[in-house]
């Protein structure tokens, strides 16, 4: 019966509710200019009825957001209206914990509060942490040297805390605390926090959930007899990598710092660049088991508020047990997970993240990941590097055009070669045709087998070069490629022209600065090989048309993926052609930032002074 029902559900029409994607709202300024230009009546109506109506109006006409090959069952789709869903989403993370803990028959940790009885608190801690089996959780009894003395105990995770800070803390409590204790034991925690402790961040908490989160993150918790609150002292101090040079996004000119695995260091690296009080870092927790802190960074007075709200909504709604890297988070929050193209930009460079934040984007940094996710991201940004702006503008522009050429070569070259060789001989000048034919004369395979052989070996070498440990990896890769190319030509397995072709294609794919996009193009290349072999240029055209229309349809957090060319918006001075920095007067229009002006029309004041001559 169920099979019959399933089959019926396949062939009967069901409205696809998931097509209403998030659309980045235009700011009030944009709407006004839009109205002046004479836009649709709906848009006008939306403007008249204020913001909520405008949102509604937009949603009705909203373009199809994400079209999924298979409709994923999303919690938000299941029940309830939209506003309720958004309201609920903030509490969903906690509910996930409850569900998982209930399933195991554990007490509801979220409901547990600190008791005023020290023994009971200790019992709870032992139960929650599974002591004494759990060996790296340290519970240390102390007696605070006040008058009268107060019993208490410290809880911390060995290895996550800084021993020297810990020593200072214990000294302060046991030796230097010789002063009268307050009568009201309920205020003990506050008293300890304000009078006794030298730690740099001290707080009091009464819920075990918050206390355990802090302890698991390297803080030390102090429980006191008679007090229903615990004191949390910041003692983080685990082993970590220092700030190092970028590995993937290397540049010649510009800062040479990269993100590390520690969240606070990463946020500080960004803040070090943007010295502005409007830079906001919000922390969200993701992952029911490992409870990773995810920082959402943006400029309060620049970023579009609905974009920030959408980013937070997506992150808060994630229900999963384990997230360790930004890559996993990326898959959870991106718009079109089934499309090959990445719609979120990951960068290991704090300067790039900072530049994006100043443009009005939002950076998402997950604890433990040396990559920041930048949203929204367009394809043009994935073809840019920070160096384009740091070096002189002529060089930046030239390199970008070179990259665009590389983009096309990297996925089209083998497919086009095959279609020319197999279908369109007339295109090749006679001499070249004879040269190719002469080379291919002794090769026993059809062209397509040749191309596939070489492409697959090239991919193997690349992958192997990456996995071979140490510095010999790249060397072996290059030597392998040379030997393979040379030997295969001598053995008459492939023709020399093909080795050149595959080498140029490989080089081009290395030119693409964003590795996720380069991977995408590698996969596309194989599709074009098949299309070129079966249908020649007609197949290539089929592939290009489908790829263009699918890519043009993508959105990254409400922003079209091919903006500002598809759809056409105000171009700006930094898309492909990189104009000199003093022409970068506006932020990208498609981001709809709160403040679009970056600098006045005449940003080089010295020019004005000289021309006016009055100041001299």
């Amino acid at each position: 019966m169920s099979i019959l029902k399933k089959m019926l559900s396949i062939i009967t029409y069901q409205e696809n509710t998931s097509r209403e994607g998030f659309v980045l709202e235009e700011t009030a300024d944009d709407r006004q200019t839009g109205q002046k230009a004479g836009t649709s009546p709906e848009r006008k109506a939306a403007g008249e009825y204020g913001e909520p109506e405008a949102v509604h109006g937009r949603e009705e006409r909203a373009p199809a957001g994400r079209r999924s090959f298979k409709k994923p069952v999303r919690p938000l789709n299941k029940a309830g209206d939209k506003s309720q869903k958004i309201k609920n989403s903030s509490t969903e993370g906690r509910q996930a914990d409850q569900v998982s803990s209930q399933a195991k028959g554990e007490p509801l940790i979220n409901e547990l509060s600190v008791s005023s009885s020290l023994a009971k608190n200790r019992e709870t801690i032992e139960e929650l942490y599974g002591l004494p089996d759990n060996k790296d959780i340290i519970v240390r009894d102390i007696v605070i040297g006040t008058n009268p003395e107060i019993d208490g105990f410290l809880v911390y995770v060995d290895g996550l805390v800084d021993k020297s800070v810990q020593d200072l803390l214990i000294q302060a409590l046991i030796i230097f605390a010789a002063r009268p204790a307050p009568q009201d034991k309920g205020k003990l925690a506050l008293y300890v926090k304000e009078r006794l402790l030298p730690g740099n961040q001290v707080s009091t908490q009464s819920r075990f959930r918050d206390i355990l989160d802090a302890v698991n993150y390297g803080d030390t918790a102090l429980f006191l007899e008679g007090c229903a609150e615990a004191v949390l002292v910041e003692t983080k101090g685990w082993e970590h990598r220092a700030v190092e040079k970028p590995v993937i996004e290397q540049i010649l000119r510009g800062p040479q710092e990269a993100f590390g695995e520690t969240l606070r260091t990463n946020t500080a690296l960004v803040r070090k660049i943007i010295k502005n009080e409007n830079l906001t870092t919000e922390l969200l927790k993701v992952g029911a088991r490992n409870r990773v802190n995810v920082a959402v960074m943006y400029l309060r007075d620049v970023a579009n508020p609905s974009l920030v709200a959408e980013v937070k909504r997506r992150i808060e709604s994630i229900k999963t047990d384990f997230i360790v890297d930004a890559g996993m988070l990326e898959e959870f929050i991106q718009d079109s997970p089934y499309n090959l193209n990445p719609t979120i930009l990951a960068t290991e460079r704090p300067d790039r993240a900072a530049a994006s934040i100043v443009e009005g984007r939002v950076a998402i940094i997950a604890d433990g990941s040396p990559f920041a996710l930048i949203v929204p991201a367009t394809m043009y940004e994935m073809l840019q590097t920070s160096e384009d702006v740091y070096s002189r503008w002529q060089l930046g522009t030239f390199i970008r055009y070179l990259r665009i050429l590389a983009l096309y070569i990297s996925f089209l070259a083998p497919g086009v070669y095959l279609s020319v060789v197999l279908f369109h001989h007339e295109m090749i000048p006679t001499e070249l045709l004879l040269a190719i034919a002469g080379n291919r004369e002794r090769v026993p395979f059809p062209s397509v087998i040749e191309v596939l052989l070489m492409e697959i070996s090239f991919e193997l070498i690349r992958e192997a070069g990456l996995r071979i440990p140490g510095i010999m990896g790249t060397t072996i890769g290059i030597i392998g490629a040379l030997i393979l190319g040379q030997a295969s030509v001598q053995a008459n397995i492939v023709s020399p022209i093909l080795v050149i072709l595959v080498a140029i294609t490989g080089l081009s794919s290395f030119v693409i600065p964003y590795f996720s996009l380069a991977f995408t193009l590698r996969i596309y290349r194989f599709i074009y090989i098949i299309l070129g072999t079966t249908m020649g240029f007609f197949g290539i055209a089929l592939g290009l048309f489908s790829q263009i229309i699918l890519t043009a349809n993508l959105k990254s957090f409400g922003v079209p993926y091919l903006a500002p060319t598809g759809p056409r918006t105000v171009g700006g001075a930094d898309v492909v052609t990189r104009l000199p920095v003093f022409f970068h007067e506006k932020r990208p229009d498609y981001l709809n930032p709160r403040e679009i002006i970056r600098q006045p029309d005449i940003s080089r004041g010295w020019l004005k002074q000289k021309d006016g001559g009055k100041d001299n």
Partner: protein
Amino acid sequence: MVKIIKEGTFGPGEAIILLGISNIARIFLSYPRSLVEIGGSAAWMTPLGGLAAALAGIYLMSLVLKKSPGSTIIEITEMVFGPFIGMAVNILIIAHILEMGGALFIREFSEAMLITTLRFAPISVIDAVFLAMGLLGAYLGIEALARTARLIYPYILGGLIILIFTLIPFWNFHNLLPVFGKGPKEVFLLGTYSTAGIAEIIIAGVIVQAMGGAEIFARIGYRSMLIGFAFLIITLAVLVLTYNWPISEEFTLPFLRLARTIYLGRFIQRLEAIFILVWVFVGALKIALLLYGAAVSLARSLKLPDYRPLIWPLGLAMFILGLLPLDMLAAIKLDIVYLRSFVLIPNYLLPLLILAVFWFKGRRERAGS
């Protein structure tokens, strides 16, 4: 009128380009040849009358659409003729013509592909590939199509400009004489009749809401018509200039012939394969737009909440209808005799009729008051 179908929106620039590209699709087929037959050496003048008619058609359609801002031609027809006759008119005239147009375009583009590159491929395979592109485009919707048109038009424009400039050495201006070719009557009367039949006016009427409403409809329409007809005129002029008109009459695909003629030294010659890309892009966009138009107009007529379930059956019907003509000649004949004449009804007659009904209603109301 409650808007039932969710469509995307796009700017006027994208709308102009989308309709313009859709309009120039016919220059890649054997259509220019039939105009050379009509006009002779004055073939380039034949679309002038059609252009005037098309501009008038856009004006009429804009007048109709302004009667009820917020609706499309489908809802207005129903409003004017009542639910039953209105629905019949919508389905039998508008949805039908778009569907048939799509079917014939699939067939003609597939035949053109067979002639140009894939000589031994079965027609059904090429048909199916075009259909697949059309289905994908129509499924993703008008917004994606408009964006795609906006992204690829520099290549189409560039290709045509390269074609024009590289053929300059072959031009002979004497080919344009006599000025009026086979006579003003043929050039202007017959020329107008056979060039005024374009599907874009009615498509624009169907997708008017996605383009930004009735207010800017006329502006978009005029410009897209100018673009489309300008390309047709230029192609015809280049064709007659390069080969004179008696020879041009012989070409099955005049555009292919022109591309094949390119010779810039020994290294750069016979670039027709590159034009296949332009060709397929334009063809796929046109087919996707027609399929989308057919599906949306049918869904709107039947008051369905979504057009997408209709795409597959309509696409399949297009595929089968496209395969029905016996050969390419039969398909071209159907195009010229049936489609180009029939499309005049929704383009020009229907708006006139609607305006007349509005006028009568208004008069009766004035008389009543």
